[in-house]
């Protein structure tokens, strides 16, 4: 087990304590509706929220409470039906489709519940995909991705295919992929849901270790109460609304 895997520390790194002024994410009266008329469903209901740089924010709540819809809006994957969304100083609400795609590619990293690695690519090739999207030369992208994979403890598995890796290892590749292009916002959707408790804590420790920095914001959607300790802030949701915003060490009412 590497030093990262046994990470017991639940505080942000030193760099995080000198975070940028202002909020990384500002939501003002954000709502999202699906369907129309009688079949209209309110997934997110008039949420106003500021999330700062340099912190790992956990978005928690029961299934169907709107967590995934909210991070989809924050990540520019879904349009808000109402309200203003500002991410890293850019107003997403007024941003055109193509600009949003470029913004996402340059500034946002994603870690998915099911990893979504490309099965035909090796670990290092998967990790370098965001750099290729950004137009990096192949060899340079591979070099940088290799360095990051070594950092997450997969230096010995660079040439392994996803099918040859455990769930925890795949998620670490996904984390490397999410961070390789040094995004300023990391969005993680249930990163521990498909993992056992030990692997889950390892992955959360890793995200905290390599992702939380003064100029970066991290949002993690999770159901997993076992990893609540890793968050600097916990935003609890229910029925599309934010019900509680808790500080470090506090636990939401179940």
């Amino acid at each position, binding site marked *: 087990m590497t030093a990262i895997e046994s990470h017991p520390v639940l505080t942000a790194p030193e760099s995080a304590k000198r975070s940028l002024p202002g909020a990384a994410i500002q939501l003002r009266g954000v709502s999202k509706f699906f369907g129309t008329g009688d079949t209209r469903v309110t997934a997110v209901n008039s949420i106003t929220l500021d999330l700062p740089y340099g912190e790992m924010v956990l978005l928690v709540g029961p299934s169907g409470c709107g967590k*995934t819809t909210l*991070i*989809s809006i924050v*990540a520019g*994957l*879904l349009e808000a039906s109402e309200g203003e969304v500002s991410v890293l100083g850019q107003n997403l609400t007024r941003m055109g489709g*193509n600009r949003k*795609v*470029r913004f*996402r*590619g*340059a500034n*946002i990293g*994603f870690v*998915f*519940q*099911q990893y*979504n690695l*490309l*099965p*035909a*690519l090796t670990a290092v*090739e998967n990790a370098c*995909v*965001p750099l*290729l*999207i*950004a137009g990096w030369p*192949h060899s340079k992208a591979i070099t940088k991705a290799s360095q990051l994979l070594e950092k997450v403890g997969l230096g010995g598995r660079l040439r392994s295919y996803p099918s040859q890796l455990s769930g925890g290892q795949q998620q670490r590749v996904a984390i490397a992929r999410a961070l390789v292009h040094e995004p300023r916002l990391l969005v993680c*959707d249930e990163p521990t849901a498909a993992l056992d408790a030990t692997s889950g804590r390892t992955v959360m420790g890793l995200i905290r270790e390599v992702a939380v920095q003064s100029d970066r914001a991290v949002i993690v959607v999770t159901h997993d109460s076992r990893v609540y300790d890793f968050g600097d802030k916990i935003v609890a949701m229910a029925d599309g609304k934010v019900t509680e915003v808790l500080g470090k060490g506090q636990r939401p009412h179940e």
Partner: protein
Amino acid sequence: MNWVALRMLTGDRAKYLGIIFGVAFAALLMSQQLSIFCGLMRNTTSQIRDIEGGDIWVMDKNVQFVDDVKPMSENKLMRVRGVPGVEWAVRLYKGIARARLSDGNFQQMILIGLDDATLVGAPRPDRILHGGLGDLRQPNAVFIDEFGWRYLYGDVPFEVGRTLEMNDKRAVIVGMCKCNPTFQTFPILYCTYSQAVQFLPQERKTLTFILAKGVPELSAEQVSEQITEQTGLKALTNDQFFWSTIQYYMQRTGIPINFGITVMLGFVVGCAIAGQTFYLFTLENLKQWGALKAMGVSNFRLVRMILLQALIVGLIGFGLGIGGAALFGYVFERAVKSTPPAFYFGWQIMTITAGAVTFIALAASLLSMRRVLFLEAGVVFR
């Protein structure tokens, strides 16, 4: 990202090979059937291509194709010669004669009677395999084509002096020439016009065609028009006669429909296999496409990636299919000695097949592309 697209494509070997198989199968079936069809159609015009020297074929106005023989009276030759713009005109007999072989069997022959004086319409010197054209002026002399010799005598080497009997007249084979394969596969006999008349049952009219050449100042088309206008006969250039013969077989026989069905079948099966496999392949990778979209890959780039994948499978499938058809033609040509194979594998076949394969690859990719383009990037969170 092109590299990622290619790795995604080749990553799933079974599906990758399945798509290529679909395209290759379609390309093979289409090009092979088209080649046989075109070979057959070309064979219908073999005499038009073999009988050289003149620019214009003159015939009875009701003749529809080269084997549709409607004899004219001899004075028509004089009338054609009298048309302004005609440099020269000679008579030609083309018809079917029945020959009695040395073993007592009968065999139908394509008999071509050339103008006695000029031998216009005879095979080119480079196509004469044995004997000299002048030998045709010997009594009862005939030239036989190479395939005809094999048809009648198998692997026996050519020898001068073999005889046939036509209309109770002895015909002596004095030479052998190369001819294009014929539609009916009958042996071809060349002789002089006066000799041909001897080999036929007595008929009042024997002139089947007139071969003419226009003056250099006028085009063959212009001279043809003048001949038609002034004589009431049908006059066609070599090209026009070639295409009118093809047109006849296309319109009046079931050959195009039968081959068309097979070609369509190949196309449909290719579309179905390649389209379905490519679509399933994309569908199974939908989450990966979604992840790429979420990570900042634009729709335009996704389209390029999918088109690249389609281009690769299209090219490989086309190459394999065309290669298979060419191999079939090669083996077919060498395996069948006595009957000339009907197989024309020209650039036109490759172009048509390439067009069809492009359509299959595009249709398959468009079908898949639709799913990817309308895919919400948020699908990755589900």
